[in-house]
């Protein structure tokens, strides 16, 4: 059964990708770009040299972390759209912590800074979770609003209280914070590139999320609350509490992503630091079937897409907003495809068809059992 599910899920994902690619090709044709050439640049361009590969991984680290958090929240039945704002709060909390404690040794400071980032995001996510659990405020609307609010707080702090004094002296006035103390930096993995140890951190986090969701009582209860709140309540699970916990965790992962971006890549808080990772993370999580095992490859794939889109903007003059189009189409295609995933008849029909196509897939089983 499990093997069937994986095959079926994989088939749907492939079909979804093809549909999305076709739809976006129409848009590319409309703006006079060659779809094939554009896709080729997007998919192969970033992987043509070592630097490109490391840049892809640099992008996939925050995507993976955000995607994990979103997977937790979606699995628990709460739709967290607020990762963008949670990242920014994480960035602010991590930056403030690092700047406030410049003399600590690395062994203390770095974990503290990452923790502060996670806490900042968790608080921001927790607000939406609490509003939903206690006041039944629709979490999609509240997280969207919290995104706009976080963006304004971010801008306010970077232009005011947290502005680098040097910027005032030189008069350039770029809204950014002071450079963080060296002790708060994540180390580079490949010298000369921007790839940092945040990658390892994110992979460990993926493992932890898998353990949490599938091997602990807490995770079981969160998934139960998401799969059927009514049934879970009958079984004695305080659903509201798990909604809040899920949002705290989701926000925490987004905030951690922000802290990792600060300590690993930019080494200071800058404007536009979240650069759409919060929204891309939703697509990453959905594309990875809300499972850490799927989200890891999915985050790398979207890392390629983001870098590739930058390259097409330069070479083929396809605006980088195209990524948003692609993400939107993929989301629509995935949620449409899920209705087939949930439909046992569609699954049965597809498995029959596949079995006729490739009998070796099912050699271990006698016939097809839907």
């Amino acid at each position: 059964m499990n093997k069937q599910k994986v095959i079926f899920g994989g088939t749907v994902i492939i079909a979804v990708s093809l549909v999305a690619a076709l739809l976006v090709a129409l848009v590319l044709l409309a703006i006079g770009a060659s779809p094939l050439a554009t896709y080729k640049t997007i998919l192969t361009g970033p992987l043509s040299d070592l630097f490109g590969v490391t840049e892809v991984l640099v992008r996939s680290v925050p995507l993976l972390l955000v995607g994990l958090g979103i997977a937790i929240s979606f699995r628990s039945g709460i739709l967290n759209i607020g990762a963008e704002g949670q990242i920014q709060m994480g960035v602010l909390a991590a930056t403030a912590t690092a700047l406030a404690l410049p003399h600590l040794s690395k062994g203390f400071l770095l974990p503290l800074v990452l923790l502060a980032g996670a806490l900042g995001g968790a608080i921001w996510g927790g607000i939406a979770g609490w509003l939903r659990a206690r006041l039944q405020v629709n979490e999609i609307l509240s997280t969207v609003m919290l995104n706009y609010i976080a963006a304004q707080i971010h801008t306010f702090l970077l232009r005011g209280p947290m502005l680098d004094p040097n910027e005032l002296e030189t008069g350039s006035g770029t809204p950014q914070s002071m450079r963080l103390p060296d002790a708060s930096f994540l180390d580079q993995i490949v010298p000369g590139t921007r790839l940092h140890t945040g990658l390892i951190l994110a992979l460990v986090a993926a493992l932890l999320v898998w353990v949490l969701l599938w091997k602990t009582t807490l995770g079981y209860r969160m998934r139960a609350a998401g799969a059927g709140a009514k049934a879970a309540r009958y079984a004695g699970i305080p659903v509201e509490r798990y909604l809040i916990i899920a949002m705290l965790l989701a926000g925490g992962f987004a905030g951690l992503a922000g802290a990792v971006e600060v300590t690993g890549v930019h080494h200071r808080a800058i404007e536009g630091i979240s650069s759409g990772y919060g929204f891309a993370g939703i697509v990453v999580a959905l594309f990875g079937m809300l499972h850490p095992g799927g989200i890891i490859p999915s985050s790398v794939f979207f890392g390629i897409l983001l870098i590739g889109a930058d390259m097409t903007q330069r070479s083929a003059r396809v605006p980088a907003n195209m990524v948003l189009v692609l993400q939107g189409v993929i989301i629509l295609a995935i949620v449409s495809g899920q209705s087939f995933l949930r439909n046992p008849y569609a699954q049965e029909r597809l498995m029959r068809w596949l079995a006729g196509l490739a009998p070796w897939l099912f050699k271990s089983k006698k016939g097809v059992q839907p």
Partner: protein
Amino acid sequence: MSPDVMIYNVLCLAVPFSVAILIAALGENFNQRAGVFNLGCDGIMCMGAYVGFMLPYALKSAALAPYGNVLGLVGAMAVGAAFGLLFALVTVTFRASQGIAGIGLQMLGWGLSGTLFRHFVGGVTGVEGIQVWPIPYLSKIPFLGGVLFNHNPLAYVAFLLVPASWFLLYKTPWGLKVRAVGTHPRAADTMGIHVDRTRYQALALGGAMAGLAGAYLSLCQAKMFSDDLVAGRGFIAVALVYFGRWSPLGILGGAMLFSIAQSFQLSMQVWGIKFPYEFAVMLPYVLVIIVLALARKARQLGPTDLGKPYNREMRF
């Protein structure tokens, strides 16, 4: 400045602010009354804003130039309706999760409008747009004339849409069907109402209105287009529907409350009251959250099957 002049200024400014969210929220009301929660409203507004700007801009030197603005509005509504139908395909026919699909539609509309704009136009360019049209005689009434009758033609349309959508929802067979499929689709189905077809129609209408709301922003208010023109107004419109308890009059009240708050915030800056700009911008969004938290009891008044896909083959 005397207080009555201040109030006058705030109110005069509030009406133009309310138009876009009012039209979009009235449209979203049809969606939600039919049981579909369309979060993609924001993305549809982006597309409407783009098309509304683009048609007059592209026709500037063509023979059709005098009709550019009208074509822009019609085009925006057509594109909005098309996006509404796309959303219907995903959520009604494929029965996808409406919340996530809405975010997908929002990204699609936002990204597509930005992509097309950068490709076909590029930088900041203005259009003549639709000018303010004071209603003869009525606009001369002291105080009220300036507040109510000295606006863009679309503002009058928006306010007329309030009674119009009330009439459509409560006094026509179609409105009854819409409310039925949003409240108890199975009963409606049993009575021979096409649930899916009605939802498609409601989504097309809501999409067209969201497109019109977007076109108001680009063609009447800003007289230009940019990526961040809509700035989450679509989400505010969705929240207004909750706040207005799914009634056109309530939505009008909510829209006015928001726009008065917004114009008050702008006026404060004009009056020179020191207040960090970022916090002022934040105000409407904070207000949405507070309003949603306070409006929770209203939920029982709303369409009970909101957000639930209908599957006539499903038992139980």
